């Protein structure tokens, strides 16, 4: 034992606190709300929560320096102790309570905790303005802490079981956020939708975990830890799960099924087509929680599950091509949906779906480092943009209809500037925000040589730019709203903490986007190590950190990418810049198309019609009405009893008119049969 060991051990055992502190804070809040029934001052509640998150942030930031500075490659592992175990021999299932800090989880932890810090500051600004009732503050912070804590558990988990715990924690917190307003029917409906779709994702992830474990156990290497899985998953190559004969026969590769389960899980959490609609409902909670869901927690979890398992995704080519396809479709559908909405919250939701679609395209193509970088940039830029719109939302007293806004730029100069900055960062206008990440992604798509995919993602960039610019113009530009409020009043810029927190987020959004352009730019400027984050992450992620595209082709791809973004903005300015919203299309075809896009292809309604209602009807009619009430009730009980009555005890009926006897007789008949069989058995055993 030397000093260095001791030092490393100390750092490693601090890792658990990164995740534990926000969770403990959430637990304390929950206990105070539910059991102790104490009502603290909002300031105390806030101090409690922000202290927990601040310590988490400091610890995770410190751990990055640890990882960068350490000579030894490999993760820091904090093993708390044995946790769940059962089974003998090769099927032994055991999971430790242990956390793992490697480049990927460390970077994500810093992102999550820093965004959370900024958002907590923002919430305190709102509390100071008296915008939040005191009884809601407690619940809000319990939920925010739960979101952050579960995300940190997910990021730091060393094995798949703990990972799943974090995953469902996020799901529960997201559901509770979406039904935050408990008295609203709409919110409770949204909560249910969120929950059911989250459940689909949970089961997909659980199926992937179980199949992976089972495959490894059959191959003789049962393990759940990421390191173990990474070492031994190649044993599963070639093993298959048979499809039953009546379903067509054949088989599925196990790794393909695992990849498919992970893809389903990611699609639900990232709100991709066809399960994109929950996010629109889930955005009705408090704006701060919405910002967290859209940037650093829920949607990050969806992509992180794939990044964490990136080593085996290459062995599930079919699932990955499906994922790419889903991403491309979502980019178009959700982008167009965002571009046609009249409701601010739905613009936010669908633009997030579209943004995550780009991330999933990257993952599906195997450009993991690019996708991770895009995810980080998206998190900061989106958090900033959602919070700025939250200011408008609060200033307009909860109004979400874009038609009732307009011309706010004059009264809310600071907010307008900030919204423009954040929106441009989300769109990826060079050189800020998502620009370098989008450019890398476009280069990666070009280098795979798939024109349809390239077209989809370029149109997607343009549509996303159009959607964001349109929302911005409708809110801030123009003269006055089309539908005028009777008591219209000018907007008011925020002050104090809200300004600070947004400035902080904006700085992060802009700087993170410029922190790590790909090495192509490094070569251009003569910098040796340009792609810092990409290189750091490539210690964990499979695949190359940079797309293999250089020279003129790269310049062309950059040009097209930027051109699309500007085209989208320009079209929006041309259409909405001067006049603002001026009514729907007059052509019926375009009106129908708008309606279709606005409802995001009516998938939610379609699922309700095609799946939910028939299922309920089927249950009501067939199961509850026929089987339970008729067959089981009459035929089995009454009918069986009737037969017994008629056959055996018809004489006794005259004496005793109750039914008890007839039922008792069923038992007696069974007894008589039993005795007969007994004689047979006794004869048999005697022989």
């Amino acid at each position, binding site marked *: 034992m030397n000093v260095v060991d001791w030092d490393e051990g100390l750092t490693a055992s601090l890792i658990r606190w990164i995740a534990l502190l926000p969770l403990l804070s959430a637990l304390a809040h929950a206990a105070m709300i539910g059991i102790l029934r104490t009502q603290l001052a909002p300031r105390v509640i806030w101090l409690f929560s922000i202290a927990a998150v601040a310590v988490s942030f400091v610890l995770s930031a410190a751990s990055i320096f640890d990882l960068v500075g350490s000579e030894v490659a490999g993760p820091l592992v904090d093993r708390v102790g044995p946790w769940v175990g059962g089974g003998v021999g090769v099927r032994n299932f055991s999971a430790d309570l242990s956390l793992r800090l490697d480049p990927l989880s460390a970077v994500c932890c810093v992102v999550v905790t820093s965004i959370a810090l900024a958002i907590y500051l923002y919430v305190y600004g709102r509390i100071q303005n008296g915008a939040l009732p005191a009884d809601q503050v407690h619940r809000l912070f319990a939920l925010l802490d739960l979101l952050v804590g579960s995300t940190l558990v997910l990021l730091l988990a060393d094995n798949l079981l703990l990972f799943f715990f974090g995953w469902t924690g996020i799901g529960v917190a997201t559901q509770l956020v979406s039904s935050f307003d408990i008295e609203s029917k709409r919110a409770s409906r949204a909560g249910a939708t969120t929950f059911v779709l989250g459940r689909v994702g949970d089961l997909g992830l659980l199926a992937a975990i179980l199949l992976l474990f089972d495959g490894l156990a059959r191959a003789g290497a049962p393990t759940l830890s990421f390191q173990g899985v990474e070492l031994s998953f190649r044993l599963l190559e070639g093993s298959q799960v048979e499809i039953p004969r009546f379903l067509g026969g054949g088989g599925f590769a196990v790794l393909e099924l695992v990849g498919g389960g992970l893809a389903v899980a990611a699609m639900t959490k990232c709100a991709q087509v066809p399960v994109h609609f929950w996010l629109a409902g889930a955005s009705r909670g408090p704006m701060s929680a919405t910002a967290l869901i859209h940037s650093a927690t829920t949607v990050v979890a969806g992509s992180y599950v794939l990044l964490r398992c990136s080593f085996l995704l290459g062995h599930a080519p079919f699932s990955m091509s499906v994922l790419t396809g889903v991403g491309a479709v979502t980019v178009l559908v959700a982008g167009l949906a965002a571009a046609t909405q009249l409701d601010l919250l739905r613009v936010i939701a669908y633009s997030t779906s579209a943004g995550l679609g780009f991330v999933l395209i990257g993952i599906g193509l195997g450009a993991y480092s690019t996708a991770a970088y895009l995810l980080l940039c998206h998190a900061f830029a989106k958090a900033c943009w959602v919070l700025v719109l939250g200011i408008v939302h609060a200033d307009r007293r909860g109004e979400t209809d874009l038609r009732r806004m307009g011309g706010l730029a004059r009264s809310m100069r600071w907010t307008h500037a900030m919204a423009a900055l954040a929106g441009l960062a989300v769109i990826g206008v060079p050189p800020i925000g998502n620009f370098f990440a989008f450019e890398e992604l476009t280069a990666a798509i070009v280098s795979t040589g798939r024109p349809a995919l390239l077209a989809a993602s370029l149109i997607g960039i343009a549509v996303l730019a159009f959607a964001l610019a349109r929302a911005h113009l409708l809110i801030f530009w123009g003269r006055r709203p089309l539908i005028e409020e009777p008591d219209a009043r000018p907007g008011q810029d925020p002050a104090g903490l809200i300004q600070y927190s947004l400035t902080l987020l904006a700085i992060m959004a802009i700087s993170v986007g410029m922190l790590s352009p790909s090495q192509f730019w490094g070569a251009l400027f003569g910098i040796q190590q340009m792609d810092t984050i990409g290189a750091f992450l490539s210690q964990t992620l499979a695949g190359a950190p940079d797309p293999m595209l250089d020279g003129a082709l790269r310049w062309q791809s950059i040009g097209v990418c930027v051109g699309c973004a500007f085209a989208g903005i320009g079209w929006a300015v041309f259409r909405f810049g001067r006049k603002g919203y001026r009514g729907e299309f007059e052509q019926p075809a375009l009106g129908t198309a708008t309606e279709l896009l606005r409802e995001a292809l009516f998938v939610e309604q379609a699922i309700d019609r095609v799946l939910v209602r028939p299922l309920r009807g089927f*249950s009501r009619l067939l199961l*509850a009405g026929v089987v339970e009430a008729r067959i089981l009730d009459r035929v089995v009980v009454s009918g069986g009893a009737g037969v017994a009555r008629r056959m055996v005890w018809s004489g006794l009926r005259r004496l005793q008119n109750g039914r008890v006897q007839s039922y008792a007789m069923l038992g007696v008949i069974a007894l008589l049969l039993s005795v007969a069989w007994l004689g047979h058995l006794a004869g048999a055993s005697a022989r």
Partner: protein
Amino acid sequence: MNFQFDHILLVVVALPASVALLLVAIGLAQGFTGLPQLPERVWKAAGLAVGFATFAISLFGIALPFDPETLGYQFVATLGGTLSHEPRLLLGVDGIGLCFLLSTAGLAPLAILSSRAETEESVRSWIFVVLMLESSLLGAITSLNLYGFLFFWAQSLLPILHWLGRWGGEGRARIATRVWATESVGLAGLLFVVFALSEMSDAQLGQASLDLIRPISESGGTLLDLRIGLADQRMLFAILTVALVTRLPLVPLHFWLPQAHASSPTGLSILLATGFVQTAAIGLLRFALPLFPEAAFEARPFLATIGIAALAYASLVALVQKELKRLLAYTSVGYAGFAMFGIATMNDQGLTGAVVQLLTHGLATAGLFMLIGALAKRRGTTEVVAFGGLARPMPVCAAFFGLMVFSLMGFPLLGGFIGDLFVLLGSLDLSRELAIAALASMGIAASYLLWVQRRVFFGPVDEPANRGLIDLDRIERAMLLTVAIPILLIGVYPNPLLRRIEPAVLEILHQMGRASLPIDTPASASAGPSPGRLAPGEPG
């Protein structure tokens, strides 16, 4: 604290019934001599005191000294004949029995407490019924002798029939007869198996022994030494399984349960959903599997398929129920199917999962019945449409409801997840296709509970009567905490529980000839089958 003595199990089993009988005897004597009856308060106090005392004894006298490292049964006690062929009681617990014993003993006083208001008019009957039921359930859970199991099995029926027939509300005769109809089939089947086995034992071992183990002081064979031909095994296993699953209850033998629940007071529902179900599971695990191993092993795919089908079917029926107690009854029918699925895997993880699942889902269902009872007490109805937006006036009630529902759905950090996880792990060994089907059924199982939670607790408060509802009082909160704490403990750190269940499960598999034991203890050495039946390693 080491006040362990040989007959502590006898005390635990006999205490509630003997106090109940004593109270009745006093009542009869007073009636006979014309003295005034004991006031109802005395009955209530005595019932509660006995309930808590039984739980305390089983916690401090059995659960704490219980040695998780030992294989085989502990605290073995006999009552009656000293020779093995004489009818007698033979009691003992393994890890599985311990779980069920503790949960039943713990829930019985809660059952008395939770039905205070509903049983105002019939306090004496109620106390008598609960105490008798508790004794017989505990007896069935700890019986290591088929006679004893049969005795307690039949005995546990009488209090329920008495209560349903006397106080079951509208249509009570119909409901009681229905329960009796199904249960008598089960009884007949059990009786038949008992006769058959005692005949065989007489023929093969020279004495009609029905003991599962032999106490160290005695010599002679046990039931496990019987050699039963495959054809007979199949027949007997089928009869015994059908007899036992009438009580589990497995679809399609479940039709009596929703009605029984709907007309039971909360307390009886609690015991019906936990101890009553667990005796059936004990019968399957302790007798059906080890006695007829080949037949049981053959029946795995069949039983597993029925289990999943039962879960899906009951979930679909529950989806359209409009009354909370009936809905909850279908929930427990569905999870009985899932437990059957776990038992049908017949490997260590599946069986462990099934036991954890029965325990935690029993606790969660009991909690939900308490909450529904609390709602019924306040509103006088359990129709779903009568509620809405209750989270505003009753936040604590809503929080507990959410906790129980999440546990039933198998959410991590709650007990239900551990059971589900291990059942699924075990089922992967049986068949990956069935495991995926089970996952899909779990998806349906979640949806209706969510619908109920949303309908009852969220949304606007439409009914004016709901606006002024008072949240759970102190006693109700304490009762729900008593149920919630073990659910949380098991969910957060399940290892202590798993460590106690696993040896018992391994013992069962060893008796089935499907697993080799890490260590052999005297009890298990004599209880185990002859080495010829051992097939160590992977089940085929």
